[in-house]
């Protein structure tokens, strides 16, 4: 088992604490079937690689990293997960506290992994670039992302919380209880069917993913995962030719009365 990154420095009163959904992402992305899929897609030294080596190091993005536990895990164990340490990683979150927490979580996880690997194989970790504060993928160039991971605010709620106002966009030591509640609400409140934010992300996928791009999106049962997958499969390719979009469930947890409570959907073309 790959070690789970240390998040003991994260202020859980205003940043989402790693939970069942985060751990399902870790388990799924490090499962033999997903590491085989990712390695064959992104490790140019693999003989079965469908992508010519000149695409270069893939860019791995987590949207809404919160504590940073998932992107730290992907960065620290890049060699195991992607078949190569030559991977660039980044993350985008609306919260300045999540961005700061993520930067620290990744740095800690990488130095731990490097200390563990020692002389034998010194570079098993990917290259962390930095957390960026922003709304979903809006700061990124079109076609720039090769692997996108999203643990969305998926809980159905009557409405969506407002984006953080200017004073909540800056790091500071003291926040009020109301501000902390607002920041936490942003991490889970998903609006109608819990899908309002996830729908915006799905709409942005054709623009932001590269040709070989793949996305992993976490859904809960109330999100109506079968409908979501159907909708993704019917997305246009934009070019009118070539392969369409695929969407398959590649990880599940928490069976309840025959329903999977949470699942990870892989989206690619």
């Amino acid at each position, binding site marked *: 088992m790959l070690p789970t990154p240390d998040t003991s420095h994260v202020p859980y009163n205003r940043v989402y604490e790693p939970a069942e959904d985060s751990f399902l992402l870790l388990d799924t992305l490090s499962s033999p079937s997903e590491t085989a899929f990712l390695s064959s897609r992104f490790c140019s030294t693999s003989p079965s690689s469908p992508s010519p080596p000149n695409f*270069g190091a893939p860019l791995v993005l987590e949207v809404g990293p919160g504590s940073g536990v998932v992107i730290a895990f992907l960065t620290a164990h890049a060699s195991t997960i992607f078949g*190569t340490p030559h991977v660039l990683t980044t993350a985008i979150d609306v919260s300045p506290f999540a961005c700061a927490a993520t930067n620290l979580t990744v740095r800690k996880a990488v130095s731990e992994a490097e200390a563990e690997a020692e002389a034998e194989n010194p570079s098993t970790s990917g*290259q962390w670039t930095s*957390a960026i*504060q922003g709304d979903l993928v809006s700061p990124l160039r079109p076609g*720039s992302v090769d692997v996108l991971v999203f643990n969305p605010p998926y809980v159905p709620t009557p409405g969506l919380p407002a984006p953080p106002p200017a004073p909540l966009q800056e790091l500071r030591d003291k926040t009020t209880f109301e501000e902390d509640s607002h920041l936490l609400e942003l991490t889970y409140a998903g609006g109608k069917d819990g899908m309002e934010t996830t729908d915006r992300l799905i709409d942005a996928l054709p623009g932001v993913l590269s040709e070989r791009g793949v996305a992993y999106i976490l859904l809960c049962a109330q999100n109506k995962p079968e409908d979501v997958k159907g909708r993704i499969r019917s997305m246009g390719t934009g070019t009118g030719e070539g392969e369409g979009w695929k969407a398959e469930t590649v990880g599940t947890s928490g069976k309840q009365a025959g329903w999977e409570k949470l699942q990870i959907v892989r989206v690619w073309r």
Partner: protein
Amino acid sequence: MKVMTLNFLTCAVKNCKSSNDSFPLHPKEAELAKDDIEINPQLLINVLPRIDWAALRTTSTELGFPTLPEQPPSPEDLQSDEALLKELHELLMETQMMEGKLVCGHCGHEYAVKNGVANFLLPSHLV
């Protein structure tokens, strides 16, 4: 924020996405820091194909780094040109922008960089 990040960031304003002037963003009043990282030629060779070379040249000049060659080096060039290898390593891997602003050349919007984190959240009138 590693300087390399500037190579995949653009203005968050929707109307700017299609304009060539929105990329790369222009650093302003940039305070840089340098991490000490061991040089890894193979990593650089694998990173280079995904770098927009013209944009990197602009960024390099704007941050006061040496002017990069007009054409991106081939893997062979890079392996035999130690000086260029070192320059690229320093610029892409080691240099961090800690404070300052990133300015869009199309709409003029300035994105603040604080504690090494760039803030791309837009004021409501620009969303």
